């Protein structure tokens, strides 16, 4: 059963009203503007045993995403396409209130929002993931772990997922006459074929003020959030109102305008960071001082 949650973080009343009052004036306690993201660091290839991976630090929020490619059967209703499975887990390193165990409704929602954004946009070119037509295909497992939670896990996860996919390469496969498939992970034949890029942009609202990329304190005071999946070509690739509360029609329109701008910027930023990567990014355990 889903139930009204206890606040993850009890923000003291004074602090809460400071946050709200500043937001009303277009300011944030961190000095950021309402439409400004925290600094984003991306470490592609963070996990050697994954076929693609990335660690993302969004302010103090840290998420790692990994891609594993496994040979499996296609879905009966899509025999000539690869398959996609997205999982997310909020491990208990990330916050004092996170309990170990199977994903809770928040982790499930996050995984499903990201899954839909990729699937509906056909971001991965599934038609190129067939090994033996109708019988054997690549199954793309994306696993997302929140390691440190300072708010906005969805966007951090979405960026980490995009970066991990862009970092993924297909291993060589040999199919013998009997149709059995042999995978050679030591040889990589091509990058994962992609059609499009997508990230989510989360817009929070408190007392009719909207702002992006809420940190944990801000999430605690926010009444509700709208998660907008934005494609590289500036379309809306998914929506999820998340959290109690609601939006007026006008607020939604404003939020979408913001999201399309911010989202396409985020994709550009991520792509440029990935191109310049390998050089000097600070992985977990090697913090940048900035």
């Amino acid at each position, binding site marked *: *059963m*889903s*139930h*009204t949650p*206890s606040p993850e973080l009890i923000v003291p009343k004074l602090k809460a009203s400071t946050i709200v009052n500043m937001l009303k004036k277009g300011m944030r306690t961190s000095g950021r503007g309402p439409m400004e993201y925290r600094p984003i660091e991306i470490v592609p290839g963070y996990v050697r045993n994954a076929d693609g991976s990335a660690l993302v630090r969004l302010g103090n929020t840290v998420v790692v995403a990994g891609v594993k490619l496994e040979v499996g059967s296609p879905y009966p209703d899509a025999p000539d396409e690869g398959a996609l499975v997205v999982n997310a887990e909020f491990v208990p390193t990330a916050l004092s209130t996170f309990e170990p165990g199977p994903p809770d409704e928040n982790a499930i929602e996050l995984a*499903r929002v990201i899954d839909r954004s990729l699937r509906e946009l056909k971001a991965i070119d599934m038609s190129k993931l067939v090994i033996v037509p109708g019988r054997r295909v690549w199954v793309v497992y994306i696993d997302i772990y929140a390691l440190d939670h300072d708010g906005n896990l969805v966007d951090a996860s979405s960026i980490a997922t995009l970066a991990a996919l862009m970092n993924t390469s297909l291993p060589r496969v040999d199919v013998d006459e009997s149709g059995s498939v042999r995978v050679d992970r030591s040889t990589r034949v091509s990058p994962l074929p992609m059609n499009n890029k997508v990230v989510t942009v989360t817009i929070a609202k408190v007392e009719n003020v909207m702002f992006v990329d809420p940190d944990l304190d801000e999430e605690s005071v926010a009444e509700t959030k709208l998660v907008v999946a934005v494609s590289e070509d500036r379309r809306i690739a*998914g929506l999820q109102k998340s959290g*109690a509360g*609601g939006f007026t029609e006008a607020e939604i329109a404003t939020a979408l305008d913001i999201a399309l701008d911010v989202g396409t910027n985020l994709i550009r930023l991520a792509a440029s960071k990935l191109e310049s990567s390998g050089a000097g990014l600070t992985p977990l355990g090697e913090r940048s001082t900035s």
Partner: protein
Amino acid sequence: MERPKLIREDGLRHDGRRPDELRPTRITVGVLNKASGSALVEYGGTKVLAAVYGPREIPQKHLLLPDRAIIRCRYHMLSFSTHERKSPALSRREIELSKVIREALEPVVISETFPRTAIDVFIEVINADGGTRTAAVTAASLALADAGVPMRDLVVGVAVGKVDGVLVLDVDELEDMFGEADMPVAAAPSLGLVTLLQLNGVLTREEFDSALKLALRGASQIYEKSREALRDKYMKVRVEE
């Protein structure tokens, strides 16, 4: 299954509806004996039952909040409600929708009236033909009203979709399966608030605006039917007394 033609030559939908037309809707309030409140909502072939228990005390004291009632919500599909028999275990989809539906109801329930209690909303999808989550919101909201839970407004839901390039109201399962986009919306019309909004598919900014307007027009119609159903129930009660 072959992809069927969803928009016919004459511009009508595969079942003869206009793009902006709801399916036949049946709404009945107070259908169960033991629950504090209940409602059965049918959108075409979709049939959803909601029951409310509470506000009440619960053994799981650690969930309760000092300043308000909590809402607990389960969206559950009977195993024979879908084309393929559904496994009895709660799916990830059901877990997500339980959350999304609860969060659609939270803004209209005046939860401060009953601190340290729980209001339980149980939704059973009896037959699924598209739009189950939005029918569930409507049913849940009516069951809450039937239970006497104080509310700021009713919330009613309806899904819009994009099929064969056309925006359509109240998508059924065929349109959901073969269409390009499905966007469930729930609104509290008198408050002017959208309290559930999901998009499964890709829309341009302009398509979205039209789609949302279409959804809100549909919601208004369902809102009227819902209020009628509530009136019916309480009229009948009065008559019977």
